[in-house]
């Protein structure tokens, strides 16, 4: 038997073939043909997001400015940096046990890349609010919410609110003066909800005022509950883009 070259050895075995589906560009090597360009999408997990072909005008940077994609990228980046931060953070506060705030000090002082990752998380959060907002404006000015895309606009507005909630719940976690009083301003407004305002405030604060319970509650909302709901709505949002005929336009 002739000696196989390295490429054949790696690609021509059961394990490699089990990982990459028939037609995958990694299975047999990629040639720049129409067939392989189509297969690159079809045998890729990205096929859930992108079809094989897209409208040419959608590629123009000045049509979308990549704002939806960048919002999603920010969400991924915030998830990754957030997981890193979770390793070094305990949502505990209260007289004599200010663990959360001490964790923040340690994060910037003695954790490798701690300050950098925290900065990325903070600026990324502001950036995401901004890109989501710009994305909405772009969609409006292009009339991209018109039939059949009405419902996807509704999902998008829900995602905007979820983004604001994600950012706002994260605002409390450093447990410094800035966080405490910014959140006080926000939650006092919720207390004015008609009929059951007091109950709303009580549930959100875990008490009558911001305290250790609020921190724990907002931590769980921030790292688990709201991201989970957001992912569900993101899935519907992306799915509807394709079902509604891809990107809107051309104008």
């Amino acid at each position, binding site marked *: 038997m002739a000696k196989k070259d390295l490429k054949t050895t790696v690609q021509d075995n059961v394990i490699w073939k089990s990982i990459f589906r028939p037609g995958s560009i990694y299975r047999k090597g990629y040639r720049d043909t129409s067939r392989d*360009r189509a297969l690159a999408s079809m045998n890729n997990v990205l096929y859930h997001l*992108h079809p*094989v072909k*897209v*409208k*040419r005008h*959608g*590629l123009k*940077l000045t049509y979308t400015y*990549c704002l939806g*994609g*960048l919002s999603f*990228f*920010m969400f991924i*980046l915030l998830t990754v940096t957030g997981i890193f931060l979770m390793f070094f953070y305990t949502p505990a506060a209260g007289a004599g046990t*200010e663990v959360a705030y001490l964790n923040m*000090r340690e994060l*910037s002082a003695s954790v490798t890349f701690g*300050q950098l990752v*925290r*900065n*990325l*998380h*903070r*600026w990324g959060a*502001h950036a995401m609010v901004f890109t989501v*907002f710009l994305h909405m*404006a772009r969609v*409006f*000015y292009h*009339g*991209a*919410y*018109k039939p059949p*895309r*009405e419902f996807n*606009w*509704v999902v998008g*507005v829900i995602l905007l*609110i979820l983004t*604001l909630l994600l*950012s706002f719940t994260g605002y409390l976690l450093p447990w*410094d*003066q*800035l*966080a*405490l*009083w*910014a959140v*006080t*301003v*926000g939650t*006092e*407004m919720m207390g004015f*909800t*008609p009929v059951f305002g007091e109950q709303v405030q009580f549930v959100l604060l875990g008490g009558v*005022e*911001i305290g250790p319970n609020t921190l724990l509650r907002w931590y769980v909302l921030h790292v688990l509950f709201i991201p989970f709901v957001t992912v569900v709505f993101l899935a519907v949002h992306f799915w509807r883009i394709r079902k509604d005929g891809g990107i*809107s336009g051309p*104008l």
Partner: protein
Amino acid sequence: MSDEVEIDQEVYDRLIGEGKNERIARAKAKAAAVRKSKIAEGQSLGPRSAEENAKALEEFRASAGGGGVATKTAAPADAGGAAGGRLTPEQRAARVAASLGNGGSEPASLGVPTSSDHTHRLLALVPPAGIQQVQSKQMDKVYTWPHLLLVEFVALLAAGSLLLIASFFLDAPLGSLANPNEVPAINKAPWYFMGLQELLRYFHPMVAGVTLPGVFVVALLAAPYVDKNPSAHPENRKVANMAFTFFLAFWGLLVIIGSFLRGAGYEFVWPWVEGLGFTL
């Protein structure tokens, strides 16, 4: 790729002479060769006329025996009782009988021609309502890979590096330990809620904190259902664009006033007098 199909050398040379791409020239020369051979065999070129089509269909039906009967019977049955695409059992039985060729019971008489070059026939028993109609127009499209994915990747890298550079030089703020007994002089919500805080200055908290934001959210959610204008052209939707622009400008103005022009005790200040009372 092989060159099994002959190419018309004359056409090929002419196109190369005109400075055409080698691949284009080869493809056109190939097509020319095929066209030539068809003409040589006496076949007609181009799309057939309606009469020719009808004639060809008649010929096919004649040669296919019962195969054409089903296609013929499907239409009247539909027009009759098949409202909404549903058939009564009797109608269905009648259709099956018709497609089997006037009560013929032998499977051999299903209508598949035995001496024909055709390898498939039309399925006649599917009611039109049962078929999902895909009505997509032919559009100018490009492959997602590489065209779209490369753009997205570059955008991702650019945004990522911008954020990394910002994070390298600018540290996220961290104040002193939270103290519920000590109200800071400057007390502001995050910037995206500054519009609401600014509204609080002018209205009762129930209006500024609940009613107005509620109205805004409902207005946003309802926008596609209220805006019945089918056009997406900016020239045709001046009202919608104006309304939205005013909404954004109004909101942006509130955020800017609240963020930069409010100091201690939320009083109005100029930023160059007392500094920016603003933390991200």
